[in-house]
């Protein structure tokens, strides 16, 4: 809080206005979150009580069993484990490939560096929709249709992470690198024990957003996974569940609530870095 606003609070007119503004903002925020809260409420209602007039938040009982029943209707634990596996491995690959590449672009000297970097940047413009069609053929050629590899690798080498980390590495003082080189460190040692530790905040932000992009991805799993029951991730699994149980709203909502927990936890973990992280990366939430 700046001194300016404390001065404002001292004046009674301002105080009233601040209180009113906060109450209104609180109401707007509550209205904004109402769909999610209503989903949680519906997930706890007994079957057949989803639609009542007037609408209510509480059914005749709080039916926690719905959350267990979801797992009987569909292999939801499978979808969650698949999603975690794909997102975790994908994130590791993205971090490894892009931090190595970013270091070479930011701190090593070699011919063709700027030219190749432009090529990297240019690939960022190509939207996923252009890539999915030939990517599907590629998966056929690799024999990867309906496999975990297909869910992980095609999107693990976008230039975005390389670009982001290159910007970060360029901000690290040269003296640190020089000192390591004088101590006899090879570029690989310098990278591993000097650059990576300093870049931890940037790596963290990239990791969280990459994980979320994998976890939320829908179009590609929809195309490349035939056997949803064994290879489905949460979004395609949920959409399948939804198609089959469209009128079991209490179960569909229970599944939805379960599906939003991991990203919600990541958001809470990330909250302090949310504004800076997004300002620096310009991604996520798409």
């Amino acid at each position, binding site marked *: 809080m700046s001194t300016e606003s404390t001065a404002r609070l001292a004046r009674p007119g301002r105080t009233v206005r601040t209180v009113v503004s906060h109450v209104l903002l609180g109401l707007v925020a509550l209205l904004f979150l109402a*769909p999610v809260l209503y989903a949680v409420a519906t997930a706890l209602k007994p079957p057949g009580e989803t639609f009542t007039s007037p609408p209510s938040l509480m059914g005749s009982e709080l039916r926690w069993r719905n959350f267990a029943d979801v797992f009987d209707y569909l292999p939801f634990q499978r979808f969650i484990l698949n999603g975690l596996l794909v997102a975790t491995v994908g994130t590791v690959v993205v971090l490894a490939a892009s931090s190595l590449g970013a270091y070479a672009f930011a701190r090593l*000297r070699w011919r063709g560096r700027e030219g190749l970097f432009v090529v990297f940047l240019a690939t960022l413009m190509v939207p996923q929709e252009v890539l999915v*069609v030939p990517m599907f053929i*590629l998966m056929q050629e690799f024999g990867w249709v309906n496999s975990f590899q297909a869910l992980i690798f095609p999107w693990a080498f976008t230039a975005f992470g390389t670009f982001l980390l290159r910007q970060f590495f360029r901000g690290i003082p040269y003296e640190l690198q020089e000192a390591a080189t004088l101590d006899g460190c090879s570029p690989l040692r310098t990278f591993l024990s000097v650059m990576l530790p300093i870049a931890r905040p940037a790596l963290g932000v990239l990791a969280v957003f990459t994980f979320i992009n994998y976890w939320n991805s829908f179009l590609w799993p929809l195309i490349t996974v035939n056997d949803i029951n064994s290879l489905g991730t949460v979004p395609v699994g949920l959409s399948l569940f939804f198609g089959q149980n469209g009128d079991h709203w209490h179960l569909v909502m229970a599944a939805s609530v379960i599906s939003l927990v991991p*990203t919600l936890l990541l958001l809470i973990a990330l909250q302090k870095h949310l504004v800076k992280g997004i300002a620096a990366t310009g991604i996520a939430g798409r």
Partner: protein
Amino acid sequence: MAIQEIRRPARAGAPRPAGRDGGSPRKRERWYAYGFLSPGIIGLTVFTLFPVAMAVVMSLYDWPVFGERSFVGLDNFRYLLSGDPTFLVSVRNTFVFTALFLPLNVLLSLGLAFWISKSRWRGFFRVLFFVPAITPMVVNAVIWKLLYQPGGVIDHYAASWFGIDAPNFLADPGTAMLAVVAMSVWQGIGYNIIVFSAAIDELPQSVLEAAEIDGAVGIRKFLRVQLPLMSPAVFFVTTMTMITSMQVFTQTYILTKGGPGDSTVTMVQNVYENGFVSRDLGIAAAGAWILFAVILLITAVQFLAQRRWVHYEH
């Protein structure tokens, strides 16, 4: 701000330490660079450059998922523009979606970002509005599908508060697109609120105070001082939001499957259905190229127009 970051003139090369111009360490460094870059280069070649080249070729072929392929020239494009029953409708729907979604999203997120920035609990509110932005789109859409059901919450309050006999929102061609837009705005503003918040946090206090002393307060201060100072952020948000809204797919696919009729079929859904439902990959590739061309064109116009209204300080 990301834009400024990109536009900052790049330092010319890396400053080289004195006396290390010798041949062998130099060469060693080059081989290290190639080694470091090889995963990225191989991955990008296999999974981006090669597919792009292939997408060009495929768009010129009759290319079924299984069976014989044959060269057809520009026939796929011709088919989309004159024969395909949904392509042109999907283009119109995508533009309608963007025309509604983009201004609503930008105005609401800008307004909320300013409102929130005045609060002592701004950190809390920013996280709160970000919840739908980080939640899987499928989950958001499924939740809203419940809200829109006949006899559901929105239906009930439309009737009891406003006396409107609400239509079946998702099954009425007059409201389906609006319903999709409303859900998408709800989902999308959290992200833009954060981008605007970052810009608001960085507004130079000295300039704002000078403006206030000169008598610029309230709406005048906002329009004449704060907004121009934030114009790079506004430009960034409009451009990025435009690009993502032209690629809208998941919401409509879950909420309406493109219906009723084809009133909410989007360009991406058209690509998806041509490729993976009708199994004509050549036509799907052609559709994807048209989408890309449209996005590039609008982005180019935005970049040209920015010279008139975006102010880069520093």
